[in-house]
């Protein structure tokens, strides 16, 4: 297969764009997609201080790499969640990459300060992934506010977003569906969050990482094995092979149409938001999800037998 734009041998075939690209034209295509994402959603300005959340995996390190290539002012944030050897290896990758870019990496040691994610999930009777999500979102926001960053950037990609949308629709979680967006603007107590890789698939991101020799942790988080998100991703990838472009159409048409479809819900939501009595984070009840989670730790310390 040859590159659509020149005679070189292609390094990737992109059936959803009816294309194939050589190394140079693929990198050009990739950069265009990220620039388009940033511009169309007014995600970032060149003067912004951006906190890039890095896990040591392909998506977050690729994001950091490309934002750095574009000349954005970035700092990395790594959160140690205490997932044994996996966390140790992922921190090593994040630190090595920060060194390569000559950028600062902020490390938050959640496991040291509180406990490991698995234990917290057990105390709270929640799934590992949802517990992890609450913790990470809390620290992304807290660090960004405390250290005066303008925006928080994460490496969520098209597969993540399409799988999340599919999962939310299958369970008809309308409140979650209407919130899903590549950008969440600044609100009181919440820093702007952006997903500049939302136009790109995991295969495209892995290809960019490979071509740019980004040394990421290939090993998957041991706690993500068997999660429903992987089931949704596989289902979408199967459909995509039979009908190229479906994944893209599913998510992008949602973004296109959601403003009209969910207009009335947005109105209903206004004025409902309150602030966590303990940490001040915006939430829907008395305490935010993070404080409710960490409450389980103090309760478990008082009654250890319940969780034995």
């Amino acid at each position, binding site marked *: 297969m040859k590159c659509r734009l020149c005679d070189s041998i292609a390094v990737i075939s992109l059936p959803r764009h009816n294309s194939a690209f050589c190394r140079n034209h693929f990198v050009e295509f990739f950069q265009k997609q990220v620039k388009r994402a940033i511009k169309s959603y007014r995600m970032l300005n060149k003067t912004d201080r951006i906190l890039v959340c890095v896990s040591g995996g*392909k998506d977050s390190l690729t994001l950091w790499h490309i934002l750095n290539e574009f000349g954005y002012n970035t700092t990395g944030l790594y959160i140690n969640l205490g997932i044994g050897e996996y966390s140790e290896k992922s921190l090593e990758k994040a630190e090595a990459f920060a060194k390569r870019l000559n950028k600062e990496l902020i490390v938050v040691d959640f496991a040291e300060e509180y406990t490991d994610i698995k234990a917290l999930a057990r105390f709270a009777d929640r799934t590992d992934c949802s517990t992890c999500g609450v913790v990470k979102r809390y620290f992304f926001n807290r660090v960004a506010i405390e250290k005066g960053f303008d925006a928080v950037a994460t490496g969520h990609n098209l597969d*993540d977003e399409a799988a999340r949308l599919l999962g939310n629709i299958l369970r008809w979680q309308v409140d979650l569906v209407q919130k899903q967006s590549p950008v969440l603007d600044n609100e009181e107590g919440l820093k702007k969050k952006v997903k500049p890789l939302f136009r790109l698939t*995991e295969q495209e991101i892995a290809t960019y990482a*490979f071509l740019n020799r980004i040394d990421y942790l290939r090993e*998957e988080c041991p706690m*993500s*094995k068997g999660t429903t998100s992987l089931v949704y991703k596989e289902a979408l990838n199967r459909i995509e092979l039979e009908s190229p472009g479906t994944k893209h159409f599913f998510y992008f048409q949602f973004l296109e149409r959601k403003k009209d479809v969910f207009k009335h819900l947005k109105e209903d939501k206004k004025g409902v938001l309150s602030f966590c009595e303990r940490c001040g984070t915006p939430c829907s009840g008395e305490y935010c999800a993070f404080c409710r989670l960490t409450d389980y730790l103090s309760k478990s310390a008082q009654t250890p037998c319940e969780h034995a």
Partner: protein
Amino acid sequence: MVTEKDQRIGEKMSHHTRYIKVRVVLPDGKVKEIEGPREVKAILRRLNILENTVLVVRDEELLTPDRLLEAGDTIELIPVISGGLN
């Protein structure tokens, strides 16, 4: 009677479909020797791996699904799917 044209077509087809032995480094790191068709796409199908879930690498080169392998080649399948959505 086999014409010259038929012979040429036959040779071309056998070039694509003849079975060869290749070494495959699977997404979990395990190594498997398989005897199969030459096309990357066909090997992935045989291994029941979706072609949009891996990168296929031979000697530091990325291969698209239509590429043909040679007997004795080693290819590495790099997984691209991350778990968890948070």
